[in-house]
């Protein structure tokens, strides 16, 4: 793929992630649904760390806040922390196997989600922390598809 098309590739994956995020589900599935936007952002940062980083993640986080009707800044912070951790490890993350990358993503999402839930619990707000294991598991299962899609779409180096 030519580098001119990089914006289109990123845009397309983000639109796909937004549609998956907005897709109505019922019952526990709505709580278990992976954060597709976050997974797509993390995949792009792993595969393309020199061009996409913290500011890209913060912008997508802002979009997520508005679309999901959260307090503005909430997803900005979550996306920034997760992407920051991935960006710090991106030189090594590229050479990990798919399973190892899925585990790394799961670990980062878990740490940030537990921090997020702790803040909610501190303020006496519902945190849905009991659904976290299932959400992490489904995120891990979704990761290989997102990772492969982004790897195929990323512009060739050199």
């Amino acid at each position, binding site marked *: 793929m030519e580098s001119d098309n990089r914006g289109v590739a990123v845009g397309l994956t983000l639109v796909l992630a*937004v549609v998956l995020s907005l*897709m109505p589900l*019922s*019952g526990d599935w*709505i709580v278990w649904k992976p954060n597709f936007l976050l997974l797509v952002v993390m995949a792009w940062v792993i595969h393309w760390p020199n061009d996409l980083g913290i500011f890209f993640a913060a912008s997508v986080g802002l979009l997520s806040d508005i679309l999901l*009707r959260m307090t503005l*800044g909430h997803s900005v*912070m979550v996306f920034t922390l997760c992407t*920051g951790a991935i960006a710090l490890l991106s030189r090594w993350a590229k050479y990990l196997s798919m399973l190892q990358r899925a585990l790394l993503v799961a670990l980062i999402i878990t740490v940030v989600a537990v921090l997020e839930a702790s803040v909610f619990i501190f303020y006496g707000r519902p945190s849905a922390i009991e659904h976290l294991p299932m959400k992490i598991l489904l995120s891990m299962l979704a990761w290989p598809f997102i990772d492969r899609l982004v790897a195929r779409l990323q512009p060739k180096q050199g």
Partner: protein
Amino acid sequence: MRNVFSRSSSLLRKLLVVTLLAVMLMIVDSFTSWLKPAYSTVDNLARPLYWIANIPLRVQEWSANSVTPRSEIESDNLRLTKESLIYHGQLQRMSDLAAENLRLRRLLNATELLQDSVLVTEVIGVSANPLRHTLTIDRGTADGVFVGQPLLDAEGLMGQIIEVHKRHSTALLITDSSHALPVQVLRNGLRSIAEGNADYNRLNLKFVSPTADIREGDELVSSGLGGLYPAGYPVGTVLSIVNELGDSFLKIDIDPSAEIDRSRHLLLVYTSRDSAAGATQ
């Protein structure tokens, strides 16, 4: 090696700056309404995405309707005809009771009961944030929808409108953790507040004293206090009552009457006080 460390420190600086900006944004958004227009603009721009996100559900509904066998349609038709007859009979009795109620209220010089009218609407989007229980419906200012308007499904109260656009609106559901609704026990009129707790299948009843006359299985209806929700609509059934030693109030779980996470077709309620442009009886 030096490059790696300089890159890491620049990354950490960026991380710190963006995190601080995010915290400031959260404070501004929580305590002011300066950023609300942004929600409205992006919401309008994102309409096509909501429509696309609903396609799988529509396809599923369409295919389910298309492959229904004739025998099933006939039995459904028969059942609906019977139900219609039963409801017509009950409605006649209701009219009689309403008239009697009105006469009694006149005798007591009480305010007349308001006659509610409704407008059918369809759910076109559900909040993807599991901790924020909102949904988007296909009616807006063009249909006379207004902020604060109550929303029902066939079984009971669903929530209230919090944002209105030209062709669509957003409703806050009664199960959202920021929602509270004045209710009363149908059996004895005991008043309380039903609060959401971000669980689609549960509400909590607040401030009920351990000596209050309330039992498992009691039905709760809206009390009409507060002036937002009309009185008498089903809210839920008492599921469990826990009286913990030392607590001033009972812990009461309510099973909502409305099918909060399943209903597709809803009713917008207009009382005679409301401007009811486009409403149908």
